[in-house]
């Protein structure tokens, strides 16, 4: 498993290069990667179905008990097949859809990284590892959604998706850490093996809420549903992938995965059924307002996701069976529907279903694919979608309210299917913004193949029953579960409910043109709800950040320093006073030599000059003298390395400061500031100095702990072959620290370099230099 993932990431890295080399056939050739991965998962099928999951463990961070642990059981296999299988067709489709796009190489890098991360999520057997892959999917999908990065809307939507999913991911991480400490292990299979430990733990409700938050945000559950329709900003291949097999299904996967360990409690039942039910209701309502084919499909995805969460929450054998079949059916019809909608947009120029008619003549194959998938989406026989829907109805017989909601949702799903797969194609007269023509082969293979699969498995559900559906349901239930799938159940109550759903859906679709514009007009002005909360929170955050930055990091250097020093004095000094003062302070002047007093006099004299002088140049130079005086003190007390460094640093500071001053207008060379601010600055400076002096005296009053000194003295030469302890510490004992400091220096140089280049407009300026700020001139 690890090697398969490494291969996937490796090919992802090579994809840009390959795309350029392969030219027009890139999509077909690159699709070999997901196709190979599909074959790999298929080859695992028999052993997984026999109840022998594939397990693999490699040590990663043994100190924290985190390992690269993978486990492929029935649930992982189902998801793995969907991710890799649909990924194959998405890769081919994208080759046609984005043909000639300048950024296609980048696209394949992102698509395959995303796919590999998704495969990592569904095969991880370690919570921390799962989290890492989970975040990786958030980040890669951010780049995929924001693929058209020159559009501001696209960027904003990508950022929204990232904030919602990564924010939920953080909550989930906290939940994982809780789970890990509750069970004493991060390995998922071990966690699930002892369910009582988790459920009876006092921290169970908190852990459940945090983990569920991660799953709900990812799977676009109400009230976090709004990011998903906006993710439509992505190119269609990405949308079809995100919606059918990946990303949003990750939340469903997580809940299903943890169900044996966390489920079966009232808290689990209510949380999942309420949120799932609310999602179904909200998304059903919002679907009615849409006219854009991709948005119609997006909201119908949310309906489907809500249904799955609801079924996991119910958690009975029948509900899990229904969830697994419905999930599979949904993936098989949602991907081709999106691809067909994308093809229509691509070849006929719009996604507004009210502006399209009669495309069927010119795009027969696309219509066939869309039609088959649409029948499945509508929950009609003989498709797999019909089987899934009937099972869902059966599972909810005991809960009439949920059942009623699901029937309305089913009717709306039928409406969506009609709007996307029938209305744009049917009719004799052609209506479209541009002359339509059939999509190329690369954009037909995927939708057709997937839709035909949905038909095949609908006609013969036995094909996937033993190998896929039973093992997957067993993994969610935590126990083997034998069931048989039939297309035709006989004249049952579920069939009656299906008929009711269909008639309701047909009525909705037939009258759509009459009520839909009225509904939109009525609700156009509504401005509340989760979206408004998100937008308000976002604006508030930015405003707060601006205020805070202005307060603590003002452009005015004096203000800036005042903030820093005042806070340090108030906090450190405050704590010292609160703790009863610096009682260890020792005043023991040991120095008595005349030359020591001379150095002191030089330092004091230079300090006085700094305070009194009205010339900035004199101030800088005097500060240098202060530094030199301190360096002489280091010489006296036998710290040559420190002294040399101090001399050099002070020299360079004076040089650099002088260079800055020379560039400023002459009026700025005079120190400014009224008498009152000087007094205030003086008080703050003296307080800061007094605090540091007091602290130093208190520290020297403490008994000296020489263990480190002894260690370095004893080991410097024998171990590190150096006699200069200072240098040995820098380049050997603490070399990692030094390396980090070197990196900090380099980053600072890059930043300062860029700032100076912009401001002063040097020769190598690659940005137009703004006007040099000459604020001081007019005064």
């Amino acid at each position, binding site marked *: 498993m690890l090697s398969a993932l490494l291969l996937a990431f490796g090919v992802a890295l090579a994809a840009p290069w390959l795309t350029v080399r392969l030219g027009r056939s890139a999509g077909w050739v690159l699709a070999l990667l997901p196709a190979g991965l599909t074959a790999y998962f298929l080859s695992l099928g028999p052993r997984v179905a026999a109840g022998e999951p594939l397990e693999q463990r490699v040590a990663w961070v043994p100190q924290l008990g985190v390992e690269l642990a993978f486990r492929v059981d029935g649930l992982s296999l189902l998801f793995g097949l969907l991710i890799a299988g649909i990924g194959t067709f998405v890769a081919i489709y994208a080759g046609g859809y984005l043909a000639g796009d300048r950024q296609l190489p980048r696209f394949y890098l992102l698509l395959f990284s995303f796919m590999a991360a998704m495969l990592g999520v569904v095969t991880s057997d370690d919570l921390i590892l799962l989290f890492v892959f989970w975040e990786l999917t958030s980040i890669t999908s951010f780049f995929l959604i924001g693929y058209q990065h020159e559009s501001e809307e696209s960027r904003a939507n990508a950022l929204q998706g990232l904030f919602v999913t990564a924010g939920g991911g953080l909550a989930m991480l906290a939940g994982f850490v809780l789970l890990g400490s509750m069970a004493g292990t991060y390995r998922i299979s071990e966690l699930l093996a002892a369910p009582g430990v988790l459920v009876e733990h006092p921290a169970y409700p908190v852990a459940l809420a945090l983990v569920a938050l991660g799953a709900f945000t990812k799977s676009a559950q109400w009230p976090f549903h709004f990011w998903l329709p906006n993710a439509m900003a992505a190119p269609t291949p990405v949308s079809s992938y995100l919606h059918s097999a990946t990303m949003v299904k990750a939340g469903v996967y997580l809940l299903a995965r943890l169900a044996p360990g966390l489920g079966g409690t009232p808290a689990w039942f209510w949380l999942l059924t309420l949120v799932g039910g609310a999602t179904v209701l909200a998304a059903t309502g919002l679907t009615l307002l849409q006219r854009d084919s991709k948005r119609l499909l997006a909201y119908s995805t949310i309906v489907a996701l809500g249904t799955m969460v609801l079924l996991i929450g119910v958690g009975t054998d029948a509900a899990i069976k229904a969830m697994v079949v419905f999930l599979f059916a949904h993936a098989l019809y949602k991907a081709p529907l999106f691809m067909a909608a994308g093809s229509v947009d691509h070849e006929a120029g719009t996604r507004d279903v009210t502006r399209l008619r009669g495309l069927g003549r010119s795009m027969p194959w696309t219509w066939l694919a869309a039609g088959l998938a649409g029948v499945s989406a509508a929950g009609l026989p003989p498709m797999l979608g019909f089987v899934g829907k009937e099972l869902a109805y059966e599972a909810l017989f005991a809960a009439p309210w949920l059942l009623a909601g699901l029937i309305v949702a089913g009717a709306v799903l039928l409406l969506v299917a009609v709007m996307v797969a029938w209305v744009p194609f049917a009719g004799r007269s052609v209506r479209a913004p541009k002359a339509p023509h059939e999509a190329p082969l690369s954009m037909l293979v995927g939708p057709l193949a997937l839709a035909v699969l949905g038909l095949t498995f609908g006609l013969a559900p036995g094909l996937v029953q033993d190998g896929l559906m039973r093992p997957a349901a067993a993994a969610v239930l935590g126990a083997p579960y034998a069931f048989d799938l039939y297309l035709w159940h006989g004249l049952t109550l579920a069939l009656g409910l299906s008929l009711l759903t269909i008639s309701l859906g047909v009525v909705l679709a037939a009258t759509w043109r009459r009520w839909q514009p009225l509904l939109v007009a009525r609700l156009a002005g509504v401005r509340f709800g989760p979206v408004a909360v998100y937008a308000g929170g976002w604006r508030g955050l930015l405003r707060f950040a601006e205020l805070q930055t202005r307060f603590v990091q003002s452009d005015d250097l004096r203000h800036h320093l005042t903030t820093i020093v005042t806070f340090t004095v108030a906090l450190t000094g405050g704590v010292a006073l609160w703790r009863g003062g610096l009682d260890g302070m020792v005043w023991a002047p040991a120095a008595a030599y005349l030359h020591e007093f001379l150095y002191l006099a030089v330092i004091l004299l230079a300090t006085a000059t700094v305070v009194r002088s009205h010339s900035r140049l004199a101030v800088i130079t005097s500060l240098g003298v202060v530094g030199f005086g301190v360096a002489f003190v280091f010489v006296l007390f036998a710290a*040559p*390395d420190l002294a*040399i*460094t101090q001399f*050099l*640093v002070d*020299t*360079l500071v004076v*040089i*650099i400061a002088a*260079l*800055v001053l020379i*560039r400023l207008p002459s009026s700025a060379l005079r120190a400014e500031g009224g008498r009152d601010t000087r007094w205030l600055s003086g008080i703050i400076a003296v307080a800061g100095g007094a605090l540091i002096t007091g602290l130093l005296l208190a520290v020297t009053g403490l008994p000296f702990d020489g263990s480190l000194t002894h260690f370095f003295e004893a080991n410097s030469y024998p171990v*590190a*072959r*150096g*006699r*200069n302890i*200072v*240098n*040995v510490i*820098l*380049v*050997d004992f603490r*070399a*990692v620290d*030094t*390396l980090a400091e*070197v*990196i900090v*220096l*380099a980053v*600072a*140089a*890059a930043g*300062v*370099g860029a700032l*100076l*280049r912009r401001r*002063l407009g*040097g*020769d190598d300026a690659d940005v137009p230099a703004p006007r040099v700020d000459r604020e001081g001139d007019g005064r």
Partner: protein
Amino acid sequence: MNSLILRTTTRPIIVVLLLISIFLLLRGHDLPGGGFIGGLVAAAAAALYAIAFGDEAAAKLLRVHPELLVGWGMAAAVAAGLLGMVAGREFLTGLWWVIAVGDQELKLSTPLLFDVGVYLVVVGVILRFVLSLEER
């Protein structure tokens, strides 16, 4: 700054300063000095040259862009760390090769390479500041 005295004295002084900087770098492991201090001395020498002859002359003398020095320095420091890993030890473990040259010993080591990296980064960073400010 256009001063004849400064220009005349600068040339011999920076030769001495650069020699001292390398001397400090090499002896750093046993006696006061090291990459940081050596780098500061070299940077001071270059800054002196830039003040006396202008930034263009200094850039010409330097031949490479200061940011390139930073990059090479970081590369050297990281390489010193990776060499330890290549030898099967932890990152940044010191490796030593003592070569006898006549009756003297030449001590080569990854800590020395690391210190050379620090030296280059320090020179590069400070020159980046000084040369951007001197630019007209």
